[in-house]
């Protein structure tokens, strides 16, 4: 079968790329290995043993970054709406209350109003206020969408501006764990993307979580008659003698197209090419997540934050856990704490720890289950520390590990933020084969959709591949 373009993977970036191409009458084929869309931002269900029926859970999305108010212009989210011809109201976004970075003895709150973070810093780090303002000027004027910027260390840039090491750690903490493929540092261009999307813009949550976004994208795909096939794993990317990609093999069938956009990760894509002439490095960062359903919501006088970025020392260690999982830091997400607060019904808490892939991989079934229980206990312990007066009960818990991530997303070693070798312009050593999504280097859900959009524009619509 011949197409104008093939997209590998139906996650946020693959769906967005497919929509852009189909919108302008390109015959598009999207191939997805899983039985549902979403990739790293998806959902699953579990049977509910006490009450019957099923419970549905989101994976990935804690919050949508890049929050804007209706009508705000010139922001990543408004660009996304225009490019996909979606309306703001379709997303049914509820803004966060606020979130906080919690280190021993000091916390910094931030919200969708940047002034809150500024006032927190002026109160808690008064001597750093001018430095922080100079840093924000640099961030504001930096063009992170320039596809030709080489890697530079964010820590090195931060040290030029900020003198207090604790403040550097606190600023970095949410940005690293919400997007960095690198250990203990991140590319400054990615730092800028994250700084703008978390601190300048903030968090919102679509009313129905990740499924609201996926159903909007799926409706577009269906309306445009794009060919999307689930349970269809690409086993090989076809490359001719001149080093040009010209098709793929999936479920034993060959499909041909002059442009192939792959969202499955840079190392994962290269593994499908013959000869593997290049070897992008697999990132080391992977995570655990525990999800708890509580018999009642945590009252807002006990916790009113949407997300807490917790660290129990003055130094933030962003690296694989020494021993299976690291409970010295965590992201605790309270999906009930958005502005349209409803205090009735069950509560939900999601808690993320850094993990160690190679140790989890070695466990047999029974040690794996008991290690997961330990993660659950540590998670609950931390929740109790944060809300000591809460007397609710856990109705249901589910825990996923790096092995779960690898099993359902096929990201090697359970990475979430992909390779430490990004391809910012999407190009690979093979002509006509391009990287979109995480390993192109735009971050978050809005970033991944913009990645699919901009790579489809550049390589699929403008025909830059012919230059």
């Amino acid at each position, binding site marked *: 079968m011949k197409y104008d373009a093939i997209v590998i993977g139906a996650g946020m970036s693959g769906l967005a790329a497919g929509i852009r191409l189909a919108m302008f009458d390109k015959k598009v084929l999207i191939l997805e290995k899983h039985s549902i869309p979403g990739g790293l931002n998806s959902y699953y269900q579990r049977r509910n043993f006490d009450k019957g029926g099923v419970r549905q859970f989101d994976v990935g999305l804690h919050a949508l970054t890049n929050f804007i108010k209706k009508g705000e212009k010139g922001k990543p989210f408004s660009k996304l709406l225009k490019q996909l011809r979606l309306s703001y109201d379709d997303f049914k976004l509820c803004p966060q209350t606020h979130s906080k970075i919690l280190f021993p003895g000091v916390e910094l709150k931030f919200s969708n109003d940047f002034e809150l973070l500024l006032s927190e810093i002026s109160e808690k780090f008064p001597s750093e206020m001018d430095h922080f303002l100079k840093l924000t000027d640099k961030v504001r004027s930096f063009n992170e969408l320039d596809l030709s910027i080489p890697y530079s260390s964010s820590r090195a840039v931060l040290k030029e501006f900020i003198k207090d090491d604790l403040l550097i750690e606190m600023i970095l903490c949410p940005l690293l764990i919400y997007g960095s493929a690198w250990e203990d540092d991140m590319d400054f261009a990615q730092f800028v993307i994250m700084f703008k999307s978390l601190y300048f813009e903030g968090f919102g949550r679509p009313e129905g979580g990740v499924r609201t976004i996926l159903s909007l994208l799926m409706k577009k795909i269906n309306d445009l008659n794009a060919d999307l096939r689930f349970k269809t794993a690409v086993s090989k990317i076809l490359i001719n003698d001149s080093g040009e990609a010209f098709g793929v093999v999936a479920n034993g069938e060959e499909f041909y197209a002059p442009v192939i956009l792959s969202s499955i990760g840079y190392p994962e894509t290269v593994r499908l090419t013959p000869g593997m002439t290049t070897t992008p490095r697999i990132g080391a960062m992977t995570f655990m997540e525990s999800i708890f359903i509580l018999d009642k919501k945590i009252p807002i006088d006990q916790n009113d934050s949407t997300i807490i970025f917790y660290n129990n020392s003055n130094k933030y260690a962003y690296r694989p856990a020494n021993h299976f999982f690291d409970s010295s830091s965590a992201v605790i997400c309270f999906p009930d704490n958005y502005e349209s607060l409803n205090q009735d019904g069950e509560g939900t808490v999601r808690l993320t720890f850094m993990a160690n892939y190679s140790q989890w991989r070695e466990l047999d079934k029974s040690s794996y289950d008991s290690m997961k229980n330990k993660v659950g206990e540590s998670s609950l312990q931390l929740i109790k520390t944060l809300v000591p007066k809460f007397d609710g009960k856990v109705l249901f818990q589910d825990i996923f590990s790096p092995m779960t991530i690898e099993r359902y997303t096929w990201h090697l070693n359970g990475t979430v933020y992909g390779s430490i070798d990004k391809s910012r312009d999407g190009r690979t050593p093979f002509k006509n084969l391009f990287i979109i999504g995480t390993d192109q280097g735009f971050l978050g859900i809005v970033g991944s959709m913009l990645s699919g959009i901009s790579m489809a*524009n550049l390589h699929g619509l403008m025909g830059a591949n012919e230059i």
Partner: protein
Amino acid sequence: MADVRQIVIDIISDIAPDEDVSNLDDAKSLREQLDLDSMDFLDIVMELRKRHKVEVPQEDYPKLATLASCVSYLSPKFATV
């Protein structure tokens, strides 16, 4: 004779539905008057191709800067459609 000015305005109001296109100054750059970025200009080009079979090569994108330049650049192309 196609009303090229109106065709361009119709496309802009479809790709940027929140923009007010009723009082545009033909001599001023569209970017100055509206929230349009390079992605939006690509969409103007793609819609011209899709709706009217009019091709605008990449090196000519700057010729779409104002409504007046759109009209003078695109009118001969519409005449030959």
